[in-house]
Every structure is written in structure tokens, then in C-alpha cells.
């Protein structure tokens, strides 16, 4: 079996006057659903845009299915599907015409699967795109990204504006896609509860830097929330400890157990230590504070 990652990003850097993405190293394993999470302005969309050649990085390389994003741009796009909230097909008039437009560029387009998606997502081909709700447009964009069964699917905020039923339907389709272990999904989203349920890998991006990355369950298990009494200054530089709140001498922090243990914490003078497990959302909130 080919163990090459589906998406491999190394040393990626993109500089803007007020924001810098990277240097970023990221690897998305083949056959996984990878969740890229981060607050607004973290650089998620910039990263995805760079993969598809919407802007050029100042340094680094991006490879999707082994294809370089600059030298093999057509081959890359023949293997990777994209959905993003800024995609618009209004100019095509109705849903059917938008489907026909995209279909012409995709030799692997599956008409039967497209019909299935139309029915599952509840879109009619005769509907005018201009009259679709925001959710309706999202569904159309997802359909156009899914129906040609790309090897890698890159979705930027795919669940924004979707109702609970549609969200469930979309995630069911994504799970079905990765079932064959050859196809991969990268999702960037703010909906952390969804990502925690559906992704098997996650990366937390903040201010252009990847703060944490790994298998979702491992990442959540690896971190724990601790509360203790100690002088803040003593613990400020302890590796693996991120202080979330400090009230007089009482601290609330996140502990990365790979880098720091409760014993080490106590050796630094922490007492009355209490620990409890974390959710992905809690971890995200503390790391990106």
C-alpha cells in the first residue's frame, strides 16, 4: 500500500503586510478526514487557496497526491476537489447549467452519484441559483465538489449555513468517501463539535502557525485541564503547560502530557492539583486564546 500522504506541505510561508502564514509543515494521511481548525483570520482559507494556486507562497512546497501545486497544477486539480464559501455559480443561472459546466471539466464525473446527491441534499436542477438560500448554495458547491469523486477533497467551511439534516447528510457522504481508504478529506471549519465527531486527524492553526496536530482522539487524550495553586511566574516557561486563567495564586491551565506530567508540575511547586479531561473545543479555546 502506498503510504505517501495525500497532502504534504513543507516550509510553507506566505507573507502579507499584517499577517504571515507559516512556516508551516503539515501532512494529511491518505484515507483520513483531517480537520483544520482555527479562529477567524488564522490562515485556514489562505492555506487552502495556496493549494489551489490562488496566490503564490513566498517559500515552501505543497504536494497533493504527489503532484506539486506549481509544476503539476492541472494534474493536482484533476485529483483534488474544492469547496469554499466564496465560490459562486450565479452566473450560470440554474443548478443544471452549473452542473453541466463543471461536469465538462471532470472526466470522472458520476451522473448516478450526482443524481443521488441532488436527492440527498434536496436540490432541483431547475432551481435558479440566484434564489437559493445561503445553505442551498453551499449544497450546490458541495455537490459540484463531490460528484466527480476526487481523490482528495478540500472543503473550506462546508457546514456553514446548513441545517442539521443537511449537515448529517454531508458528513455521511464524507464518511462514505473515506471508507475506501484511498480518498482523503481536508475540512476547515469553525464547527468544532462536528469536527470532533467526524474527523480522525486535526490541526489547530492560530495566527498562521500550526499549534497542535495529530489524530483527534490522541490529541484530546494527550491534553488535560489542570487547576492548581502556584505563583504564575514560576510556571510561565514550563514546556507543555499553557496557562488559561490565573486568579491570585490559583491557575487553570492545559497540560500537554507528552511534554509535561503532573509530577513535573508538582516539582515546580504546584499544589492542590486537580485534573480533568478536555474536549477538542476546550483545547482549541485555550490554545488559541
Amino acid at each position, binding site marked *: 500500500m502506498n503510504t505517501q500522504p495525500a497532502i504534504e506541505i513543507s516550509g510553507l510561508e506566505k507573507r502579507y503586510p499584517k499577517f504571515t502564514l507559516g512556516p508551516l509543515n503539515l501532512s494529511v494521511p491518505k484515507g483520513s478526514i483531517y480537520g483544520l481548525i482555527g479562529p477567524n483570520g488564522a490562515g485556514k482559507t489562505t492555506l487552502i487557496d495556496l493549494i489551489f494556486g490562488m496566490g503564490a507562497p513566498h517559500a515552501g512546497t505543497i504536494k497533493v497526491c504527489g503532484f506539486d501545486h506549481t509544476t503539476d497544477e492541472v494534474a493536482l486539480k484533476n485529483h483534488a476537489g474544492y469547496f469554499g464559501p466564496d465560490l459562486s455559480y450565479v452566473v450560470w443561472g440554474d443548478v443544471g447549467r452549473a452542473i453541466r459546466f463543471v461536469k465538462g471539466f471532470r472526466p470522472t464525473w458520476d451522473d448516478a452519484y450526482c443524481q443521488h446527491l441532488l436527492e440527498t441534499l434536496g436540490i432541483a436542477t431547475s432551481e435558479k441559483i440566484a434564489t437559493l*438560500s445561503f445553505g442551498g448554495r453551499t449544497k450546490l458547491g458541495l455537490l459540484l465538489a463531490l460528484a466527480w469523486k476526487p481523490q482528495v477533497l478540500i472543503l473550506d467551511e462546508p457546514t456553514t449555513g446548513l441545517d442539521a439534516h443537511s449537515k448529517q447528510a454531508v458528513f455521511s457522504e464524507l464518511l462514505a468517501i473515506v471508507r475506501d481508504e484511498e480518498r482523503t478529506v481536508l475540512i476547515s471549519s469553525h464547527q468544532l463539535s462536528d469536527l470532533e465527531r467526524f474527523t480522525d486527524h486535526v490541526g489547530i492553526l492560530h495566527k498562521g502557525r500550526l499549534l497542535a496536530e495529530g489524530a483527534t482522539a490522541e490529541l484530546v487524550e494527550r491534553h488535560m485541564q489542570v487547576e492548581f495553586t502556584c505563583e504564575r511566574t514560576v510556571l510561565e516557561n514550563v514546556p507543555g503547560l499553557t496557562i488559561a486563567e490565573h486568579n491570585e495564586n490559583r491557575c487553570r491551565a492545559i497540560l500537554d502530557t507528552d511534554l509535561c506530567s503532573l509530577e513535573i508540575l508538582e516539582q515546580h511547586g504546584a499544589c492542590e492539583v486537580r485534573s480533568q479531561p478536555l474536549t477538542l473545543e476546550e483545547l482549541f479555546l485555550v490554545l488559541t486564546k
Partner: protein
Amino acid sequence: MKHLILNFMRRWWWMYVLIAFFSAGSAYLRIPTLLGTFALICMQLDAQRGFFRALRPLPLSNKEQSNALWIIAVPLTPLLAVIPFTIGALASRAKPLITHSYNLPFQCALQAWLTLGYCALGFMLFMFLLNRRPVTFREILQQAFAGALWGTVFAGPQLQILVSNLPKAPSGILPWHWVLFSVVPIFVLGSFLAAPNIVHCKLQRNTGGTTNSQIKTDHKNNLHGLTGLPLFLVTLIGQILGIILLITVVQHGIWSLTTRGLEKAPLAAIRNTVMMVTVSMLLCTRCADLLNLRSLRILPIRTGALVALLAIIPVIGGISSAFLMNRSNTFLSLPSATELEFGGIVIGFGTFLLALNFQASGGWRIAVLMLAATAAPATLAAGISLHILLAGASVLGLLGYCGLYYGLKRSHSFYQSRQMFGIDPNNPMSA
């Protein structure tokens, strides 16, 4: 109500300044003009941005809102436009650049009166303009009709004909002038009575009645026919030609009516070279807003091929303008060398403007549009030789082509949402 009026003026202050400048300038140079309908354009932009919906929860009655809108658009605008006009006219009298008979009080009164009627007519048309893309056949017809009238009220050769035939002094008043003056109170009264409906119409949602997709699924398949690149080309070329032809037909109809058969050739209006070139330039620029570059960029097309696809826009603009400027009486005869030169200028300069508009953002995009609108009149009025213009346009076209390639490859700005005055032409939801 007072707050609403002041808020409008505060937000659009720069537009008032611009109009004051042009109003005073035209009076000083004694160029006949009718300025003042700008408030309606601002109001339409407000409507598209959903501003009226945001106002609705405020503790203001429908009557107060409609009265405020009517005051801004109809009586207030001519009043504010006539002040700089009078200043310009006084300056012209004190230090004249052009000498001809000019009855100052009469001109100011005429300007105020006709602008009042003009604004009132525009206000009524404003009611029929949709805040979003038309969907049903009835809406398409309504938008086409109201849009064409709206466009001809604000611009076009008929406006030029009208203002240049206005009397310079009371002694020059002709019977048709009296008819024109007498319809003004009718328009003003009509606009006042229509005002409450305008508020109601403009409060409609920016998306036309969202369909319940969960329930409605059709099995009628319209997935057959052209796909991919051929569909793209047919749609793009069809839309550009459609717009150019619509403008031609409307302008021709109005030209024929206003000149009352003095100019008999069927393509007389579009032979106005400046207008044709300007329309094509604006079209090239505006197309950049309508195309969603992201949806094209994610397709498996080489950057070079995508640039060639985009360059089709100015090429169609140039070729169609060369044919429509044709001196013969049919669309089908071949254009002359001069008309082909004009076509070439449109292609070159249009490509440059297209690249510029993709790269520009915010206020710069307005500057690009202004450039597109003024480049043709300015260069042609300067009397520069066509050969030189063509050479310049070729260089700019080449630069534009390279700019498109470079931008598609490297510029993030090319893929940003193309909002203007807060309105994304591709995504009315954002309004």
C-alpha cells in the same frame, strides 16, 4: 425623519461634493447638463446592500421613511445641486471663458425645475428596479424595461440632445419646452404618491423567495446539452453580445425618437464612436466582477489557458464594437479599417482594464471604472491620431495580458470577493 436625511447625506457626502464640483464646473464652462439624479443612484446602492431592511426595526413609521426618502431624492437634490450651479454661473459671468448670451436667473431656475422633474421621474423608476438578479420571466422583463429606462434617464445621447436643445433665455422657449416644463409637477406629485410603495418594494429580501430545497426536488433533468468549456464560451460570448445589442437597440430607438428621423441610418446611435468605445471598455471592466475567478481557478485548466479564456472578453468587446460602429446600414457588412482600429483599441485597452480591475480593490475599483468611462472621451477629444492610440493600446493590451497571467499565478487579490459599494455582484446574500 431628520436623522434619516442627515444620515444619508453624511454617508454619501463625497458624492455631494463631486456633484457640486461638476455642477459648478459645467455652469462655469457653460456646458449644458442636468446633474442631480445621483442621490437615486446612491439610494439604489443602499437598497442592494439591504440598508432599508436594516432601517425597518427602527422606531420610524412607513410614512416617515417614505417621506424622508422622497425628500432626499426629489426636492433636496436639485436644491443642493442648483447652489453650486449658481456659483459657477456667477463666476462665469465675472470671468467668462466662453462668451454667449446667458440669462443667469433663467438658467438657474431652469436647472432647478428640470432637475426636480428628472429626479421625480427617476424616483418612480427606482420603485421598479429589483434589488437582486431577476429570476422569473416577468422579473426579467420588468428589470430590462426599468433598467433600460433608468439608464437612459441618467445617461446616453438622448440626455445630451435634450440638454443641448434647452432654451438659453426666456425668448428661446419653444412649445415643446412648455410641454416639458408642465410635466414636472405631474412627475413630482406622482413620485410623492408612489413614495410609500417604494419603501415597501425596497424592503423585499435580496434573495427572491428562498425555495424550500428539502421538500422540493424535481426529477426533470436539464443536465443534457453543452458542458464545460463550450458551455462557458457560449454563455460568456452570448451574454456580452446580448448586453451590447440591448444597449444598441435601446439607444437606437431613443435616438430615432429624439432626432425625429433627422438621422435616418439604423445604427446611428451606436455610430457615436465615443459611446461605443466607452460601453465596450466598461463592459470589459465590469465582466471581471461578474466572473467568479475562484470557480474557474479550481478547474483543471492551465494558467495560460485561463488567461486566454479571460482575454476573450475584451476581444468580443472589440470585435462587436467594430461591427456596430460600421458605417454601412447592416450589421453583417465588414467594418472599415478605421472601425477595426477602434476595435483594436478596445481589445488592447480592455485587456489592460480587465487585469487592473481584477487586481484593484476597494476605492481603487471605482477609480478603474472611472478610467474605463473617461478614457475614450478624453483621448478621442484630445485629437490623438488613431494609429498612435492603437499602438498605445497594443502595448497596454500586452501589459494587461501579462498582468492577467501574473495575477492569476501570484496575486491573492484576484480571488477576493468583488464588492463595490458593499455589494457583491455574485453573492447578493452578502448585501
